[in-house]
């Protein structure tokens, strides 16, 4: 079987297995939380503009919580679940490359994460676009009307794509190295990244969050600069940030692929 056919088969099977169980609905609910909050805001007493709502929700909730969590849950599904269930034996005793298994399944996990994060981002944009200042909807953020030149939608959707890719790759790589990728992932996302990304200076650039924020911050709507904590920070150029994220993702995939070739998975009875 050639590489593409194999990769496609693994990708497709991983997708089927990811969407079959009920937990996918929980993940979808998680991805829709920012949109739900936007809907709550649209009903609340205080007048808040659409751009203000969508940028804050995207910056604090979508980017820092939802995208990493979805990426974590998708990424560790590449290997960790099969290691726990001991079904990895079936894949690793077939005449196929382990690298192909890793990459094919990571592609499947990325597809899941991408779908959910894009869904969440679009839902957020639609819900936030319904927030009215007075009786007139704010035309600045209504994605289907002003997409793609509004300086808000593209950064958010782009961050969803880049974040899905890099976090899935990161946690897929982690799942090759450790039997407890969930713990490592949670510690990294909610302790290490949170700590480093809030430090002043160059320390922030050690985190994935910094590059995703740079992508958003570079060529966005001026409303982004009104976000708390934004003003004092220095961000890289958007294209540079996007390239950096892509390179990091490819590097992580390469490291994971290299390691899995000779890795022993010892299943205890």
């Amino acid at each position, binding site marked *: *079987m050639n590489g593409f056919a*194999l990769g496609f*088969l693994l990708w497709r*099977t991983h997708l*089927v*297995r990811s969407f*079959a*169980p009920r937990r996918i609905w929980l993940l979808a609910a998680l991805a829709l939380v920012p949109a739900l909050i936007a809907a709550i805001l649209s009903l609340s007493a205080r007048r808040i503009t659409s751009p203000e709502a969508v940028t804050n929700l995207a910056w604090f909730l979508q980017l820092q919580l939802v995208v990493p969590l979805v990426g974590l849950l998708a990424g560790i599904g590449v290997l960790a679940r099969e290691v726990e*269930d*001991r*079904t990895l*034996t*079936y*894949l*690793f*005793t*077939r*005449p*196929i*490359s*382990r690298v192909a298994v890793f990459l094919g399944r990571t592609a499947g996990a990325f597809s899941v994460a991408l779908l959910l994060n894009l869904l969440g981002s679009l839902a957020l944009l639609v819900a936030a676009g319904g927030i009215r200042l007075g009786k007139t909807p704010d035309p600045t953020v209504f994605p289907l009307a002003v997409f793609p030149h509004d300086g808000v939608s593209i950064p958010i959707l782009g961050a969803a794509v880049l974040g899905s890719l890099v976090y899935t790759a990161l946690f897929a790589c982690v799942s090759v190295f450790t039997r407890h990728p969930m713990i490592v992932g949670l510690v990294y996302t909610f302790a290490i990244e949170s700590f480093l990304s809030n430090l002043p200076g160059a320390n922030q650039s050690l985190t994935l969050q910094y590059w995703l924020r740079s992508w958003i911050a570079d060529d966005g709507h001026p409303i982004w600069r009104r976000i708390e904590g934004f003003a004092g920070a220095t961000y890289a150029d958007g294209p540079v940030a996007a390239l950096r994220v892509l390179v990091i993702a490819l590097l992580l995939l390469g490291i994971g692929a290299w390691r899995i*070739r*000779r890795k*022993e*998975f*010892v*299943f205890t*009875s």
Partner: protein
Amino acid sequence: MSVPLLEARGLSRWYGPVVGLNDLDLTVEGGIVGLLGPNGAGKSTLLKLIAGEIRPSRGSLRVLGHEPFANRDYFRLLGFSPQQDALYDELTAREFVEFLARLSGLRPRTARIEAERALARVGMSDALDRPTRGFSKGMRQRTKLAAALVHQPRLLVVDEPLTGLDPLGRRELVALIQELGAEGVHILISSHVLHEIESVTENIVLLHRSRLLAQGRVAEIRALLNRYPHRYELRARSARLLAGALLSLPGTHSVRVSRDEGGLSLETFQPAELERELPRFLAELRPGLESIEGTDVGLDAVFDYLVS
């Protein structure tokens, strides 16, 4: 000269401080071979090495001329049915076996046909399109076996294949294994239930405490165990008469007549002598022999002798 099925030299594997296999030297020519041993003997470790899941810590292992670990050429020849029950719960039996068939290199149409055929062969025709989530233990066992057979491997390695099967299922599986053996497939079956293996093959590899304890045909192994006399139970109308004659044999260790005077328990170090002289005794004395049975030539007895 044909390549042996399995060749291990100084094969050792440890997990931190725990030794899984200790300096195993083993050559298996082929056919149906039973891998036996109590829990913790090293069977699972040896199977994992054979299945290419792990590497040896020391020594070498070649199966069908290949080093198994992560060896794609070797995996084309291997069909492995692991011990664990887990399958892909979200897929049906057909989808699961077909998926693995595709991974083994079969084209989509061929994979579909072969998956159906393999599942039918293991008696799963009625449950082809049921999700494996709801399968019983026996159904999972059969599905695993179908997945191992679907690409017609040269070597089939099955770990505890009869676990969870009802008596009818066991008989069917034993018949299938014998059928596959007759077709020229090498089969390595692991179990700690001795009578299961006895029903399938006489060739065994016996492990104990991470070491090789014995290898070969059961009867031949028994013959090697010189320090244990061979035991026979005889029933005859004139048991005392026969007992007297048997005592005269040079290899006889003990003769005991049962209370009902119809039975004899004989222990001898020279079973060949007994085989040669017994017809003469029967012709001369006419003791009315009704039955004779060797009571310690089976695997249970051999195993007991070896580990005690």
